[in-house]
């Protein structure tokens, strides 16, 4: 009896210890961002050789000077605006292509549609690193070098395949009997889509919006390849590449930029992660 209890307690201890270890590993860089963003320079730049100065805590009162510097004296706000502008257009392009395509693959195309759906999904596996070189040529031919429009054109190449796949899975999970009944009642397919399918698909469409936008936020490679002017950069490119003066990194403001950008994205993303995983693994987990 007692040995069993000891075992159970030991299990709980291991469980909590493991949960803590994983959490610490995952969160440490974000904690470090937070500390750096609000530490005074005297507290920040001590050097790790000084073993009496503990870098893991605030040794002096936190300060807002790095955040103020970031917002007032760097192009951070411009980068945010660029990202939002590009993101909005990409989301729009993705919606008008991927939602109808997803529906079509789920309902209207039958067997070959299924094959095609898998084909479209596989294109999502073709990474930017394989395509940025030919795109450099395409963008040059179109005269879009160093233009925000290059990114608006290129980003849908990864948002459309993924979101089409996501919407296909979503429409499949909606029972088709409602639509069949409406068509028996005399509605055309087009009317069914407009009056029944789209209202039902609101949550799927919301997911597409969130993912298309976060995928845009994640990109670094295309922005690095196509954009060279600081004023045209996105957040993901500008913060790591252009937030330096000469050779000097302003770590306080830099980490503040990382923190302010990452946390909202991460929170929203977390709310939708289950749909994302369900979409990605739809094939493997079917049934």
């Amino acid at each position, binding site marked *: 009896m007692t040995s069993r209890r000891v075992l159970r307690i030991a299990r709980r201890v291991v469980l909590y210890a493991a949960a803590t270890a994983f959490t610490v590993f995952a969160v440490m*860089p974000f904690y470090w961002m937070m500390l750096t963003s609000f530490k005074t320079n005297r507290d920040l730049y001590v050097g*790790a050789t000084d073993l009496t100065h503990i870098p893991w805590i605030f040794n002096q009162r936190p300060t807002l000077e790095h955040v103020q510097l970031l917002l007032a004296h760097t192009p951070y706000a411009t980068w945010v605006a660029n990202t939002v502008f590009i993101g909005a257009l990409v989301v729009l392009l993705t919606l008008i292509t991927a939602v109808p395509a997803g529906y*079509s693959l789920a309902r209207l195309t039958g067997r070959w*549609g299924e094959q095609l759906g898998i084909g479209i999904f596989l294109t999502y596996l073709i990474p930017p690193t394989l395509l940025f*070189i030919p795109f450099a040529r395409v963008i040059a031919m179109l005269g879009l070098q160093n233009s925000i429009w290059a990114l608006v054109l*290129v980003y849908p190449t990864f948002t459309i395949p993924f979101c089409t796949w996501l919407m296909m899975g979503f429409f499949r999970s909606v029972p088709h009997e409602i639509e069949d009944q409406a068509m028996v009642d005399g509605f055309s397919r087009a009317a069914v889509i407009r009056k029944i399918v789209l209202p039902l698909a609101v949550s799927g469409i919301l997911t597409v919006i969130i993912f298309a936008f976060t995928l845009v936020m994640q990109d670094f490679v295309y922005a690095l*390849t196509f954009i060279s002017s600081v004023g045209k950069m996105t957040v993901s490119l500008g*913060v790591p590449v252009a937030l330096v003066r000469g050779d000097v990194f302003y770590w306080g403001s830099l980490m503040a930029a990382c923190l302010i950008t990452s946390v909202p994205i991460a929170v929203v993303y977390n709310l939708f992660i289950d749909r994302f995983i369900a979409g990605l693994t739809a094939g*493997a987990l079917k049934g």
Partner: protein
Amino acid sequence: MALRNEASAMATLAVLRHRTLADREDLLGRLMLAPAMAYVLLLVGAPLVLAVLLSFSSATAGNLSFSWIGLRNFATIVADPQFHSALSNTVVFTLVSQALVIVLATAAAFVLDAAFVGRRLVRFLILLPWAAPVSLAAMAWTWIFDSTFSVINWTLKVAGFLHGWFYWFGDPGLAKIAIVTVHVWRTFPFATVVVLAGMASIPRDISEAAVIDGAGFWRKLFQVDLPLLLPIVTVAVLFGVVFTSTDLGIVYLLTRGGPYNSTHVLASLAFQRGILGADLGQGAAIALFLLPVLIVVAVAMLRVARRTEVGT
């Protein structure tokens, strides 16, 4: 109610149209699919073909000329020791990080599958590395591994493990450890949620039956739980392989391929030669070496998907 009225009003109209629209359902399907297909074919398919063509050319970024030089780009890179090191780095970083990810993610999924106080919060926090934009996370790590201010060095020194000093990005071995660490940190959350989703789909009664039949913890783990999880772990790892083997951002921001070009991977070398060095042809040839990996992954993914479908 409104729907009903409208329905009857439309029904009369529909009698006239129904037949044609029913016949044209396939056409409507194609029409709705066309924009997405066109985008993918024009801007993924065509560039992919262009990548292959460029690798056989002496194209540069400066002008739009295109001249066929056969296999010369491939001959050049195959003879280039730096390409060899980039290729082996890509393989090593991918294999080592994904091996660690398999272990960590499976363990983390078992933890998150158990009931404990604060489970939702832990899940949220563990997912942060995957959700944050990769280039910003890479900057945080660059700062963590800073040669003067590295908090890791401070902690190791205080704990008494470190007597000299780690210049993380000044030493090829340490730089590689740093890169693999960031890859693991970034992909293990993703693999964890994928495996966790897989666990939810495994019927509990198999596991319970094993316990009733007297299987101990380890026996149950290795003979029941892990084999059942294998397909979903495979899927997680296949995605992980794609993400790590093709990554440019982490290596570029952490080390720029340094020190002494010792940490280049295919993607960063392709960027260096193709974009910074303006030799599009050679850059394309280097990047193309990623294609076999992707084909293998795609085939494996389809097989896993098919097998589980047959299984159900």
